[in-house]
């Protein structure tokens, strides 16, 4: 976190003392999708050195087919919130529900959610195609169907025929495209995107933001987009929630 962001973070904390939740939960509305209720993650003293920011009593909902942006300065808990929804970070309090069903105790791999990392996190020991096919390996998909799906997705992200390339020789933009294809391949019921474009330069970011918005619409994906770029949030998401100092701020 740079100094400016730290200052923004501290200022925001002062402002949002009387925060209230934006919107009704899906469960209350009888709809379907993701509900996060009072999610709290805190790190005790002496916990991991690389621990992210804590979050406190966060509640929000994402309806099916909707894309919600979480906007806020870095270090304010956006990524921690995503990891908590994914099940990678245990909640100290609160719950994460899908279609009203509590996901407590459901391990990350069984949630049917996808997560795309800021820095792609492609498997360096696999080719592009193997990376994209990875999420299909645990599903009963036959080889031909799997290959077809990989080719389809590589076409969709604008990298047709790149399947045999090594991921180590891809450019930054290409890596993010492959990571997106990999996340989309198993058709996750919820796709979380953690600053998917922030590691890229400006021009590439604008172009990919448009592509990303189109792709998510075309595939009808339910999504959470974490970003600190307002323009990116506007371009991709249906709705924007602002996060400050581990809480959802008043709209």
């Amino acid at each position: 976190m740079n100094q400016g962001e730290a200052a923004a973070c501290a200022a925001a904390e002062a402002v949002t003392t009387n925060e209230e939740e934006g919107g009704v939960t899906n469960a209350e509305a009888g709809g379907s999708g993701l509900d996060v209720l009072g999610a709290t993650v805190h790190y005790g003293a002496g916990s991991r050195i690389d621990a992210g920011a804590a979050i406190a009593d966060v509640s929000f909902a994402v309806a099916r087919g909707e894309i919600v942006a979480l906007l806020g300065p870095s270090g304010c808990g956006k990524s921690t919130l995503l990891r908590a929804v994914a099940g990678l970070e245990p909640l100290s309090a609160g719950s994460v529900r899908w279609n009203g069903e509590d996901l407590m105790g459901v391990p990350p791999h069984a949630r049917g959610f996808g997560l795309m990392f800021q820095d792609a996190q492609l498997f360096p020991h696999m080719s592009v195609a193997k990376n994209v096919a990875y999420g299909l390996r645990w599903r009963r998909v036959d080889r031909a169907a799997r290959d077809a799906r990989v080719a389809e997705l590589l076409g969709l992200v604008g990298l047709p025929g790149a399947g045999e390339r090594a991921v180590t020789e891809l450019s930054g933009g290409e890596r993010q495209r492959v990571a997106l294809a990999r996340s989309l391949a198993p058709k996750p019921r919820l796709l979380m995107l953690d600053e998917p474009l922030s590691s890229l330069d400006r021009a590439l970011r604008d172009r990919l933001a448009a592509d990303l918005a189109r792709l998510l619409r075309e595939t009808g994906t339910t999504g959470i987009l974490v970003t600190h770029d307002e323009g990116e949030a506007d371009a991709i998401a249906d709705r924007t929630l602002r996060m400050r100092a581990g809480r959802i701020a008043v709209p």
Partner: protein
Amino acid sequence: MERRDRLVASPWPGRIGWAVAAALPLGFLALFFAWPVLALMATGFTDGGRVTLDALGEVFAQSRTWRVIGQTFAQAVLGTALSVVLGVPAAFVLYRLEFRGRALLRGLATVPFVLPTVVVGVAFTALLGPGAPLEWLGLDQSLAAIVLALAFFNVTVVMRTVGGFWAQLDPRPEQAARMLGASPARVWRTVTLPTLTPAIASAAALVFLFCATSFGVVLVLGGRRFSNIETEIYRLTVQFLDLRSAAVLSLVQFAIVALVLVLSSRLRGRRERSVSLHYSGRATRRPGREHWVAIAVFATTTVLLHALPIATLVWRSLRAPDGSLSLVNYAHLVVPPDGSRLGSTVFEAVGLSLRMAVMAAAIAMVLGLLTAFVVSRRPRSQRLRRLIEVFDGFLMLPLGVSAVTLGFGLLLTMHRPLGIGFDLRTSVVLIPIAQALIALPLVVRTLVPVLRGIEPRLRDAAAMLGAPPLRVLSTVDFAMIRRPIGLALGFAFATSLGEFGATAFLVRPGAQTLPVMVADLIGRQGAEHYGMALAAAVVLGVLTAGVMMVAERWRGDAAGEL
């Protein structure tokens, strides 16, 4: 809610899995390492069932004990000093300069470290001993010969440890010092050396440990005049059956090793803190005139210390007793000369050695993989992390306890393992077990840094794509350490093949391993036996070096601490 029942996973299968993974190596070590070593210590301090410290007084009252301890320290200090003085320039040349053939030289430079101690011992006698080309130097059975042989192995250790650190060092502070008017010598003294000191100190601690517990070299080169604690333990048990004194000396050895280990782990902690500044730019340079000192030292080391003894060994192994060029020494390995009362031929010993080494490497690999997986985990609970550190430390113990102590302890206890009336000593199975114990720390130390280096979010990414925990382990962790596994396997195999200290206790007449055979032959009278010892040493050296050269191809950029 049928779907939900299927989805909710109990944490127990995972916990039980990790517990089993930790329990297997722990149990193996407790049975075949901790128990024998402790039982050995106990014999020194009990007399007819009573606990007594008499032996301690008796052993320390002898002047010979103090002489042995003094010689051990003198050899280790001098060996360490020489290794550092020669190893640091080698590290500079091979990790900081860029020239054609560097990769080949780096590969070759690792060979000395894995050569069996008896091979090096025999090579140095072939160079300096009676009838040798350099006999006129008068270095046969001298402290200098032992120190040179110790440096032969350990220059590599210093080169590797310091070089690996040096290669990542940011060269810009040095450049800044130059721009402030410092001469190259002053830059070295005021900037480079202080930065390298933690790495050098940690390498020196490791080298000291290797030197102080060296067995084969001192046994072969020391003759009657020089010994160390290891060879003394061997002499006391094998020649005098004085188990009590041997046990006391084992304890002394253990104390020295523990002290050095504590010291080196302190130093390593400091080194890891300072290594965190990685420099990704170009740090290597083409050799220039200002590097001539380092280049000259490196060239001298390679030619005189490494190549000369080995070349002499090979050359003399090809001479018949009458001095003519011939393969008769090698022929004797298969068909022994008339009148030699060897229990088995050297050829048979090669076969036994290879079988033992395969078994040992397999055991070390299975236990090493389990250990490395457990040790590389970073659980959330602080108590669990602490437990893993203790586990890690316990599994490194075989690195510290001398091989002679281990072999002797196994001999003492394994007539009734766990109270079962089955004498394990009558079967050769104890040999691969002992060798696996000695190779285990090498395997673990090769794999752990690679596993720790795997970005944890790659595992998260795999889980988010639906991979269950075991699948994450096989498709991410296991898949990414395939090459280091090859390297570790080579290490384990080569170490087991050349293992001498523990194996010397466990072989039986008629079933000897190659290193034991070489030591046996060199101790016998007659030019024919000496020639056979040379030839057998060459065979052993070629086997281990060959295995390591193949395994080195699997060394990635990031593999291993050794």
